[in-house]
C-alpha cells in the first residue's frame, strides 16, 4: 500500500474500504508498519497490542464480507490517549502510579467506538494525569513534534496529536481540561475539537478536573473530526453530567451549511502582548480569508481573558487534589515496597508514584481549598470569576456565531525551553477560558512559521453548537491546502 494512502482524509479511507481497494487488515498493517518505523523518533505510543489490533481489523473484514458492517467507520483504526479505559489494556495516565494497571472495563466512548467496529490502535503518550502542555511531564517518555523533533508536541494529548500528524494513525481520541486537545493539535498541525462540556460521557476516563474534563477528537480533517465526534456524543446513564440533548449529524450539518456567511467575533484581548508575531499574522490572515468569503467580522471584547489562567489553575488543581486522593497504594495503584505502616503505604506510594507536576498541582489545589486559615478565599474568588468569564462569552454570542482566536500564543517551543511551571501555565492563556465556560472549541491548521512549524486557529462556539463551529472550520480548510503539507518525520 502506498504511504500516501495513510494520509487520506477519513471519508476517502472509508471509500477505499467500501471499494475494496484495501481491507481493514491491510490498512491497519500499513499503519503499524509506518508506526514501527517512526516510533524511535516520535515516541507517541506508550503501549501497543499488535495482535489484538490486527484481530479487530480481521473481524471487521469478516463483517464486511458478510454484509453486516456496524457503521460507516467499521475497520478504521483510531488511537486512544492512555487515559481511556479499554478492557484488558493498560491505562497508565503516563504515571508510575498506574504503570501496571489494566482496565477491567470499557469507557463509554470506547464502547461506542467498538460498537461502530473501529479498530482500537494503541495507547498514546500524554503529560502525567493530563497535567501539562508539552509532554515533558510524562513519567515514561518524551513524545516529539513530527515537524521538528527538537520541539514539544504540545499536551497533554501529546501522543494523540503527534501520531496523527506523523501519519501513524488517521484519528485519535484525547481529553481536554484546559486546552489539552486543541493546543497539541495546533502545535502538531492537525484538527482537534473539544465539544461542549457534557456532550461526551466521562465514564471510564481517568479524572483530572471533573467540572472541566471533556474527551475530544484529533483528526487530519474537519469532516473526520465531525464524523467521530458524532459517534462519541450523547447521554450516558453512567455519567449524570452527560447532556440529554439530541446529537445532530455534524457531517450533514457541515454539508447543509456550505456557502453560509456567518458572523465572527474577533476579541482584541487575544491579539495583545505575548502573542508571537508569526502566529498573529497567520490568524489575522485567516480572519481576512473569512472576510473575503463574505463573512461579517465583528470586533468584540472579552475582558476577562487575563484572569482565565488564575481562575483555571485554582479550580482545576482544587478538583485534581480531590480526584487524585484515590491513588492511595491500597487497591489498584503503585504501592511502595518500602511501606511498613499504613501511613507509609499512603505517603510513600504517593511520593514515589507521582511526578513533580502532579505533586505541585495537588499542593496548589489543597492550598486554595484550605479552610480556616486561608478561608478558601482563592477558590471562592475563582468561581466567581468563572461566572464572569461565562457571562463575557454569553454576551459576545448575542451578536456573533463564533469567535476566532489563536489556539496557542506561540508555535511549538524547544523541549526544555520553558523553565518555570508558571511560564508553562501561561501558554494555556487562549484555551482555558473556553474550558471554564464549558464551550466547544476547535483548533485547525492556519499556516506555518518560517521555520516550518504549524500554527493553529481556534474557533469558539456557542454551547451545543458544534455544528456551526465545524462548518466554519471546514470552510477555512476547504479554502486552503495545509493538508498537503507533510511533517518532516
Amino acid at each position, binding site marked *: 500500500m502506498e504511504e500516501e494512502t495513510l494520509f487520506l482524509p477519513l471519508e476517502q479511507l472509508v471509500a477505499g474500504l467500501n471499494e475494496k481497494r484495501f481491507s481493514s487488515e491491510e490498512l491497519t498493517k500499513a499503519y503499524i508498519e509506518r508506526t514501527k518505523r517512526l516510533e524511535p523518533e516520535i515516541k507517541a505510543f506508550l503501549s501497543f497490542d499488535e495482535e489484538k489490533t490486527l484481530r479487530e481489523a480481521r473481524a471487521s473484514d469478516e463483517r464486511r464480507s458478510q454484509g453486516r458492517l456496524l457503521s460507516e467507520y467499521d475497520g478504521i483504526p483510531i488511537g486512544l490517549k492512555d487515559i481511556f479505559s479499554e478492557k484488558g489494556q493498560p491505562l497508565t495516565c503516563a504515571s508510575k502510579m498506574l504503570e*501496571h*494497571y*489494566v482496565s*477491567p*472495563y470499557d469507557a463509554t466512548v470506547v464502547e461506542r467506538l467498538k460498537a461502530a467496529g473501529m479498530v482500537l490502535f494503541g495507547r498514546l503518550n500524554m503529560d502525567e494525569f493530563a497535567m501539562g502542555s508539552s509532554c515533558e511531564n510524562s513519567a515514561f517518555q518524551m513524545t516529539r513534534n513530527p515537524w521538528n523533533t527538537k520541539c514539544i508536541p504540545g499536551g497533554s494529548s501529546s501522543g494523540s496529536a503527534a501520531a496523527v500528524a506523523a501519519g501513524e494513525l488517521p484519528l485519535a481520541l484525547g481529553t481536554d481540561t484546559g486546552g489539552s486537545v486543541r493546543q497539541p493539535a495546533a502545535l502538531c498541525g492537525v484538527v482537534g475539537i473539544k465539544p461542549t*462540556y*457534557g456532550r461526551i460521557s466521562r465514564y471510564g476516563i481517568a479524572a483530572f478536573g471533573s*467540572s472541566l474534563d471533556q474527551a475530544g477528537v484529533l483528526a487530519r480533517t474537519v469532516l473526520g473530526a465531525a464524523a467521530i465526534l458524532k459517534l462519541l456524543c450523547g447521554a450516558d*446513564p453512567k455519567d449524570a*453530567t452527560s*447532556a440529554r440533548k439530541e446529537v445532530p449529524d455534524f457531517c450533514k450539518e457541515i454539508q447543509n451549511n456550505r456557502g453560509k456567511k456567518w458572523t465572527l467575533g474577533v476579541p482584541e484581548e487575544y491579539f495583545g502582548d505575548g502573542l508571537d508575531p508569526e502566529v498573529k499574522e497567520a490568524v489575522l490572515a485567516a480572519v481576512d480569508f473569512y472576510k473575503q468569503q463574505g463573512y461579517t467580522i465583528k470586533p468584540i471584547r472579552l475582558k476577562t481573558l*487575563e*484572569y482565565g*489562567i*488564575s481562575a483555571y*489553575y*485554582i479550580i482545576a488543581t482544587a478538583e485534581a487534589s480531590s480526584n487524585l486522593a484515590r491513588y*492511595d*497504594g*491500597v*487497591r*489498584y*495503584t*503503585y*504501592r511502595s515496597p518500602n511501606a*511498613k*505502616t*499504613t501511613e*507509609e*503505604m499512603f*505517603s510513600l506510594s504517593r*511520593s514515589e508514584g507521582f511526578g513533580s507536576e502532579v*505533586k*505541585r498541582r*495537588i*499542593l*496548589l489545589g489543597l*492550598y486554595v481549598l*484550605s479552610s480556616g*486559615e*486561608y*478561608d478558601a*478565599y*482563592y477558590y471562592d*474568588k*475563582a*468561581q*466567581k*470569576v*468563572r*461566572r*464572569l468569564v*461565562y457571562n463575557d462569552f454569553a454576551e459576545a454570542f448575542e451578536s456573533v456565531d463564533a469567535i476566532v482566536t489563536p489556539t496557542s500564543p506561540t508555535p511549538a517551543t524547544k523541549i526544555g525551553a520553558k523553565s*518555570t*511551571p*508558571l511560564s508553562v*501555565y501561561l501558554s494555556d492563556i487562549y484555551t482555558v477560558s473556553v474550558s471554564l*465556560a*464549558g464551550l466547544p472549541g476547535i483548533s485547525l491548521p492556519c499556516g506555518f512559521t518560517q521555520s516550518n512549524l504549524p500554527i493553529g486557529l481556534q474557533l469558539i462556539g456557542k*454551547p451545543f453548537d458544534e455544528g456551526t463551529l465545524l462548518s466554519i472550520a471546514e470552510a477555512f480548510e476547504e479554502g486552503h491546502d495545509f493538508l498537503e503539507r507533510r511533517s518532516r518525520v
Partner: protein
Amino acid sequence: MKTSADIDQLAKFACIRFSEEEKAIFQQQLQDMIGYCSKLEAINTEGVEPLLHTFEQEDNVWGEDEPTTCDGLKMLEQNAPEMRDGQLVVPKVL
C-alpha cells in the same frame, strides 16, 4: 488574606513526603503561582454568584433501580498490589 503556603501542612494534607530540598523548590513555585493568582483581587466580584460548573439540566437524572452484576473481586484481583483469600493485604493498622 495570608499568601504564604505552609508546605509542611500541605504535604500532610496531600499525604506526600518531601525532602528539605524539594520543600524549598515547591515552596518557591507555589509562592510564584499564588502571587500570580492574586491578580484576581483586582476584579470586582461583588454580588457575583460562584459558577461551580456549566452543566445545565432542568430535571434530575433518574434511573430504573435495576440490579446489575459486577464482579468487583475479579476486577480487583487484576490490579491489587497484594491480595490473600479474596482480601486486600495492607500493613498492620493496630
